C-alpha cells in the first residue's frame, strides 16, 4: 500500500489537482464566487473546446509525435461545414454538421498522417506546414470571412441548456450547453481506446520505442496514419462545438491556441518525448490553464493581465515538472544500485 501511495506522488496529476483546489480556494476567499454553480458551469463551458483539442493533442504526444496544425484544421473544417450548410439552407439537426466536419477532418488529418506515418517525416515540421496550408486554403481559396449567421440546428445545439445554474446572489445564469456532453463522450471513448484496444496500446508502445513496436509486430506506419486521422476528426468536432457555442463562425478565432493547449497537456504530466502520461493529467493540466484565464475577473485583476499569469503558470509549471523528473531519475539510479 505504501508503495502504491509513493508511486502516485511521483506523477504530476495529484500536484496539479492540488493546485487547482488551492487556486479555487484563493478565488473563493477573494470573491466568494468560486464555488458557485454559476462559476463552475462557466468554467466547464470554457473547457469544452480546449478539452477536445487537448484530447487530440494528447494522442499525438503519447505516440512521440506532435501536432500544431489542429487549430487551423479545426477552423477549416468548421468553416467549410458551416458554409456548406448555410449555402444549402439547411434547417435540420446539428448531427449533419458534425458528420460533415468529421469527414473533412478525417481527410485533412489523413494528409498529416500520410507524411508523418508513411513517410516518417518530422511531425513538428509537417504539421507546421499543413497548418499553413489549411490556413492558406481557408483564407485564400475559400475566401473565408466571418459568418455571423449559422444554421438553426447548430445555433440551437450551442445554446440549448444541458444544465443551467443560477447565481442566487446576483441573479446571473450560466448555461452549460450540450456540447459538454460531446466532450464527455469523446473523453470516455479516448480512454477506452487507449486502455482497452490494441490500437491504443500500440500508440503507447510506439511512443516508448518505435523500433521495438515494429519488431513486435505493430504496423507502426498505419497506426500513426490512423491516429492523425482521429486527431483531425476530434479537432473538427471541437471546431463545430466552437461555432455552435459562439453562434458565429470566425475563421481565425481558434488560430494560435496550439501552444497553450500543448502547454496544458504537458503540465498534466504528458512527456514531450512520448510514451508517458494519462488522460486525467491531460485534462487537469488543460483545466488549470483555463482556470487561470477565467478567474482573473473574480480575483479583481484586469483581463489585460491574463497572458502574464498564464505565462507565469506555464513557466513555473514546466520548471517544476523538469526538476521533478531529474529528481526521480537520480533516485531511480540509486534504487537500482541498491537492488543490484
Amino acid at each position, binding site marked *: 500500500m505504501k508503495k502504491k501511495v509513493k508511486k502516485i506522488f511521483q506523477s504530476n496529476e495529484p500536484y496539479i489537482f492540488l493546485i487547482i483546489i488551492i487556486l479555487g480556494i484563493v478565488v473563493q476567499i477573494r470573491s466568494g464566487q468560486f464555488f458557485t454553480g454559476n462559476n463552475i458551469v462557466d468554467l466547464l463551458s470554457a473547457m469544452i473546446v480546449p478539452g477536445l483539442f487537448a484530447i487530440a493533442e494528447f494522442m499525438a504526444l503519447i505516440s512521440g509525435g506532435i501536432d500544431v496544425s489542429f487549430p487551423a484544421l479545426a477552423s477549416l473544417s468548421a468553416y467549410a461545414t458551416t458554409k456548406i450548410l448555410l449555402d444549402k439552407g439547411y434547417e435540420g439537426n446539428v448531427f449533419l454538421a458534425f458528420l460533415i466536419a468529421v469527414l473533412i477532418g478525417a481527410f485533412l488529418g489523413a494528409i498529416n498522417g500520410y507524411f508523418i506515418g508513411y513517410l516518417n517525416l518530422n511531425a513538428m515540421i509537417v504539421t507546421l506546414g499543413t497548418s499553413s496550408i489549411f490556413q492558406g486554403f481557408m483564407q485564400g481559396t475559400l475566401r473565408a470571412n466571418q459568418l455571423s449567421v449559422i444554421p438553426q440546428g447548430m445555433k440551437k445545439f450551442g445554446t440549448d441548456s444541458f444544465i443551467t445554474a443560477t447565481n442566487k446572489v446576483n441573479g446571473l445564469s450560466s448555461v452549460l450547453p450540450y456540447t459538454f456532453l460531446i466532450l464527455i463522450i469523446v473523453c470516455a471513448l479516448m480512454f477506452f481506446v487507449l486502455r482497452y484496444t490494441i490500437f491504443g496500446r500500440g500508440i503507447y508502445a510506439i511512443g516508448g520505442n518505435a523500433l521495438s513496436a515494429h519488431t*513486435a509486430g505493430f504496423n507502426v506506419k498505419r497506426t500513426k496514419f490512423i491516429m492523425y486521422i482521429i486527431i483531425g476528426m476530434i479537432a473538427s468536432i471541437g471546431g463545430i462545438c466552437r461555432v455552435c457555442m459562439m453562434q458565429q463562425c470566425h475563421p481565425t478565432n481558434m488560430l494560435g491556441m496550439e501552444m497553450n493547449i500543448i502547454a496544458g497537456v504537458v503540465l498534466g504530466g504528458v512527456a514531450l518525448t512520448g510514451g508517458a502520461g494519462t488522460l486525467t493529467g491531460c485534462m487537469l493540466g488543460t483545466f488549470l490553464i483555463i482556470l487561470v484565464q477565467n478567474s482573473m475577473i473574480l480575483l479583481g485583476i484586469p483581463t489585460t493581465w491574463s497572458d502574464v499569469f498564464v505565462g507565469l503558470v506555464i513557466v513555473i509549471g514546466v520548471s517544476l515538472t523538469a526538476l521533478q523528473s531529474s529528481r526521480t531519475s537520480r533516485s531511480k539510479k540509486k534504487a537500482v544500485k541498491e537492488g543490484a
Partner: protein
Amino acid sequence: MSQSLLKAEHVKISFGNVHALRDVSLEILPGEIHCLAGENGCGKSTIIKIISGVYQRDGGTIEFDGKKLEKISPIDAINMGIQVIYQDFALFPNLTVAENLALNTELASRKKTVSWKNVRKIAEEAVAKINFDVDLDEKVEKLSVAQKQMVAISRALMSNARLIIMDEPTTALTKKEVNSLFKIILKLKEQGIAILFISHKLNEVFEISDRFTIFRNGEMVATGSTKDLDDKKFTYYMTGREFNDQIFVPENMSEKPVFELKNLTLEGAFEAINFSLRRGEILGITGLLDSGRTELALSMFGLKPADSGEILKEGTPIKITNPRDAIEHKIGYVPEDRLSEGLFLTQSIGDNIIISEIDKLKKKNGQFDLKKRDEEIKRWVAELEIKTKNPDNPATTLSGGNQQRIVLAKWLACNLDVLILNGPTVGVDIGSKHDIHMVLQKLAKQGLGVIIISDDLPEVIQNCNRVLVIKNGKIRSEYDTQKVSEQMIIDDMM
C-alpha cells in the same frame, strides 16, 4: 548423425557496394549451445537478421528443421520458433513488465481489444518458465539491465522457441549476473532449446558453448567443437594475425607523482580513496560493476565532483568541479560507452578529434584557426592509424575499433599529463583491442600517466604495472601485476 536444427550454407548478401556476407555457413544442432564470434563488422549481426527474416539473402541456402527457407518475414521466423534477443532487448520502457511480456502474444492473436486479465495470465506463465521473480506492474524503465534481459528472455520463451539467438548478452552485466544468465542458458538447453549466442569474449566461448563458428570479413573461417579450441587459435581465426601481447613494464617513471588522490569521498559511491600515479605508470583499478569504480572515474574528471578529500596534480591541490577544469589540468577521460558518451556519431571524424582541444586552436584575434585545425586532424589520424579516406566523413563510417581510436585521439590531442580510461576495450574486437593496448603502453613510456578502469582482468594484468581492487566503495588491496594472479583479484572483488 543428428539432423541439424539450422543449416545455412554459402550465404551471401550485399548492400549496394558493400558485401556484408561473402560466403558464410553456419550449422546449429538441436539443443546445443553454439557461439558465433568475430570482430566488429565481420557479419555476425547480418546473418542473424537474415535468419530472423529481417533481411533477405542474395545467395546460398538456409534450412530450418529440414525445411528449405525462401522468403521469410520476421513473423514467419517467430512462428517457426526462432527468437532473437537484441542487445537493447527491444522492450518498451514506458510499459509494465506484464504488458511487455504479453504484447507479442496479444498482437499475434489478432484481437482488437485488450483484456488485462489475460495479459496478467500470460505474464505470470512467462516468468514462471525461468523462475524470474519480478513485480509485473513495474515499468520496464525502472528495472536493472539484468532484469530487463530476463524479461526479454521470458518473452522469447513464450512462443515455443526452438532456437534463441542472443546478441552479445553479457556486455552490460556484472559477473554475478553473467553467472545467473549462464545458469538459465543451461536450463534452456535442458528443455531442448538451442542457443546461438554472439560474443567475442573467449572465456565465455569456453565456459558455456558446445560448438563455435568464427566469421571474419564476411566469411566463415572456422567451426567446430569448443574442445578443440585454444587462445591462440581463437585469436588467429578472429583476426588473421598472431599477437605477441607484451606485458607492460614501465620505463622512465617519474620520481614524483603526477596525480594523487587523498581521502577522496563521495557519499553513496566511494570512501577515503588514496592513491598516487607517476608518469610512465599504467595503474589499473578494478572491481565489480557497482563497486564505485565508475563514480570514482567520473569524480576524477569532474562529472560527479567528490564531497571531500583532495586531488593533487604535480603535488598541488586542485579543484575539479567540471570536465573543463579537468581538461585545463591536462586530465582526460575516455568513457565506458563510446557511442553514447564519447563520440558525436553523425559529425565528422575531424570534428570529433579536435573538439576537446578546440579552445587552443584559436588565432590571436579569437578567430578559429582553421589551418591549425586541419593540421591537427591530419596528425592524429596518422598517429593512431585511423582507417579513413576523408576526415570529413561522419564517424559512423568507421568500424568500432577505429571509432575507439578517434576517442583516444581526441584526448591525446589535448596534450595530457593524465589519461583515465573506463573500460577502454569494451565491445572492441580483438585486433583493435591489441592495437589500443599497444598505443597506451607507448604513451605511458612517453611520459603519460595512465589509469585503466576495467573488469577485464587479463587486460588489467597485462597492461598495468599496479592494480587497485575496489570493493563497496573502498580500496581493498593493491598489487604489483607481475606478482598477482586473477584468482587473487577475484577473491578480493567479491
